[in-house]
């Protein structure tokens, strides 16, 4: 059952380690050398700023309906007005404002889910990799079990029984996505714990707990950052799919997935209702993936060659 990734433990981690005390200067120099990395970071920063300053940036209240002005086209089309640059939806709400506010939910869900999943995954991965033995077997078989159920299916069932809400969504994403972290952290630990500095620590009688948290944990953080960036992107897409199935975030909370899913009825008649949130999702995912690839390149050259998970 073991994935190929685990079986190939590369020795190059050591090299990374010695390079890593690099500073911000080196990071930014590399960043500017990579075109896609720069673009990625720029997009992600924009999204974060948009989410944080949504109340300032949004021209309208995203929930304010106005049936007299429903389904107005974007400003550059006939009948469009500059009041509603990207047009209005079926209840006369400003599409632009809703996209701006929607970024809050996308980021919130993405980040919280990663934190939950990362927490579970790192702990289990550390324990599994460090102690091996039966505990390792139990954790790894559980990971296999969770991996065998496709994410969306898992989420669908949990959301159906618990009812869709922001909290359940975060919970579900956390509970389903931890497996990737657990596996990767475990394989990192397996290689790190055989290295000299860990052996040395053990020789001088350091407690397991201490070894895990002071020596091993810092060394797996880079893998974590790489995977979690990409998983924010996956989350945004998953939320849209769940909305389509009727189990996404429920209004009045605005989410891009919800807008896209509601707007699909208007694809043939008022394309802008669904297209702009779709573009927002695409640009964000693009930015996150670019940034993630870049981070992977500089933090972990080993994963670059293998394409990650």
């Amino acid at each position, binding site marked *: 059952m073991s994935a190929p990734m685990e079986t190939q433990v590369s020795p190059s981690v050591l090299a990374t380690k010695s390079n890593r005390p690099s500073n911000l200067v080196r990071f930014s120099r590399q960043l500017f050398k990579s075109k896609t990395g720069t673009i990625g970071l720029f997009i992600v920063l924009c999204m974060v700023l948009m989410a944080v300053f949504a109340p300032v940036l949004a021209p309208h209240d995203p*929930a*304010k*309906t106005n*049936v007299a002005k*429903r389904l107005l086209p974007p400003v550059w089309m006939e009948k469009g007005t500059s009041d509603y640059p990207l047009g209005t939806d*079926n*209840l006369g709400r400003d599409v632009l404002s809703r996209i701006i506010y929607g970024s809050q939910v996308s980021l919130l869900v993405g980040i919280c889910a990663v934190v939950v999943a990362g927490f579970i995954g790192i702990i289990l991965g550390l324990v599994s990799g460090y102690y091996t033995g039966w505990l390792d077997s139990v954790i790894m078989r559980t990971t296999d079990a969770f991996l065998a159920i496709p994410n969306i299916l898992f989420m669908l069932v949990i959301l*159906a029984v618990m*009812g*869709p809400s922001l909290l359940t969504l975060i919970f579900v994403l956390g509970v389903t996505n931890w497996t990737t972290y657990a596996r990767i952290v475990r394989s990192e630990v397996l290689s790190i714990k055989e290295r000299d500095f860990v052996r040395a620590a053990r020789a001088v009688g350091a407690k397991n707990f201490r070894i895990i948290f002071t020596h091993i944990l810092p060394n797996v953080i880079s893998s974590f950052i790489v995977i979690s960036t990409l998983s924010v992107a996956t989350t945004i897409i998953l939320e849209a799919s769940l909305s389509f199935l*009727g*189990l996404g975030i*429920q*209004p*009045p909370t605005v989410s891009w997935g919800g807008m896209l899913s*509601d707007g*699909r*009825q*208007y*694809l*043939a*008649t*008022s394309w802008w209702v669904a297209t702009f949130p779709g573009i927002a999702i695409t640009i964000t995912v693009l930015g996150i993936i670019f940034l993630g690839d870049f981070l992977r390149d500089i933090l972990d050259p080993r994963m670059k060659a293998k394409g990650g998970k």
Partner: protein
Amino acid sequence: MKRFAMASLALMLLLGVAGCGSQQSANTPQTENSTSKSTQTDSGKKVLTIASGNDIVSFDIHNHNNTSTEAVHVNMFDYLVKKDKNQQLQPDLATSWKQLDDTTWEFKLREGVKFHNGDPFTAADVKYTLERVAKDQTLLEYGNYKQIKEVQVIDDHTVHIITDGPQPVLLNRLSRLGSGMLPSKYIQEKGFDEYLKNPVGTGPYKLKEWKRDDRLILVKNDDYFGDKPKWDEVVFRSIPEDATRVSELLTGGVDLAVNIPPTDLDRIKNNEGTAVAQGPTQRVMQLTVRMTPGTKTADPKVREAIDLAIDKQAIVDNILAGGGTVTRTRVTPGNFGADPSLYGTSLYDPEKAKQLLAEAGYANGLEITLSSPSGRYLKDKETAELIQAMLGEVGIKVNLDLQEWSKFNEQYRGKKMNELFMIAYGNSMFDASLAFDRASSAIAKGETDYNNPELDKLLEEAETNLNEQEREKQYQQAQQMVANDRPFIYLFQMGANYGYNSNRIQFEPRLDEMLPVDEITLKQ
């Protein structure tokens, strides 16, 4: 190279497994059918294809409680008495009937009728069918038939139906959802499970194939007792995604599509060869208001303010594209006991609503919760969002609690709703009595906690009153009471939107939303 060969082997294995699988499905007979578009009549076969949003629930006619399922069933099963296009009662499996006393009705049954499996239809089938649903509490239709105490077989073609008390609406009860006649001999010999797999009825069409969540195919029953069936084959396809259903209609893939979203009506109208048919339905959308002492909405002024703050006409015009009629009663025209003065009208006066709120002590606004299902009814989510905005205008802050239907249903059945919830009720009985089923204090307990002894008494009397004129008056009076007390704030009667291939068929919607396919005619 050896390795490469083995890799190909592994791949072939994978493909092979799937290949066998897909071949199986290619062998099933339904595929011939779907290959030809319904507009072509291959070898002169007249095929009608209808697309709806969901599949039928079951062939257990007493255990589905679902209008769109019954719309298919009416083609396979016959009632004792049926309603025609104009909702007038007509003989069907019963040729005549009369009331012998307050609780006894005599039905003469049609002779020479055969089930699809060849069994003759007799009084024993009536007894089996009606007593099954009247006695088995686990069946969803039990509540609507439990008034039948006994069915007595007088001879092969005469039955007496004994009710538990005077039943003014017995004929309505027998001509609605679940009133089809089951083959008692077949079921008793083969068992109900076998019947569910291979259902037979007496209707003009019989089952050819049911592929769940995909299509149900009926073929004509040449032995049908009535007019010869018009179609050789009828295909009911289930297409849950609205956009896909509309696209199938536009491309001629289906002849008739139900539940067209209002946004697509113009597209269908403007498309050459397709047309839209709109009709009223028996369903009324309403807000149910909690009147439990201590809740904010226990104050009649607050309830009135909520009513006055909602512009129902604007909802109908903007969200439903005109497909609906505002109303202040659930007893819409076409139902016994309708009060025309409450239909087609609504109250809207935001200024007065503000004033009432001030009088009630909420000059600075108040906060309530509105629960609504999302994705259950046409544009339910949008309607609820608009109501939230409208109530916000007069200073009522609404916490909108949108829930996916099953979750909503759980809370609804548990009677755990807050101040307001939005729901639509139908009336397959075509009688005012069903419209008050949730108004009597016994049933309202825990839900609205509406308690009006005067109304209780009135409803109780009307329920068993055999004097039609008097009964009608009683129900009209009851509607006025409810409109005044506002345990329910009625929004609008929902419309049904159909799209059809106007080059090929002629179609008129029915008030009861049934789809007897012989009322749909092929254009020459």
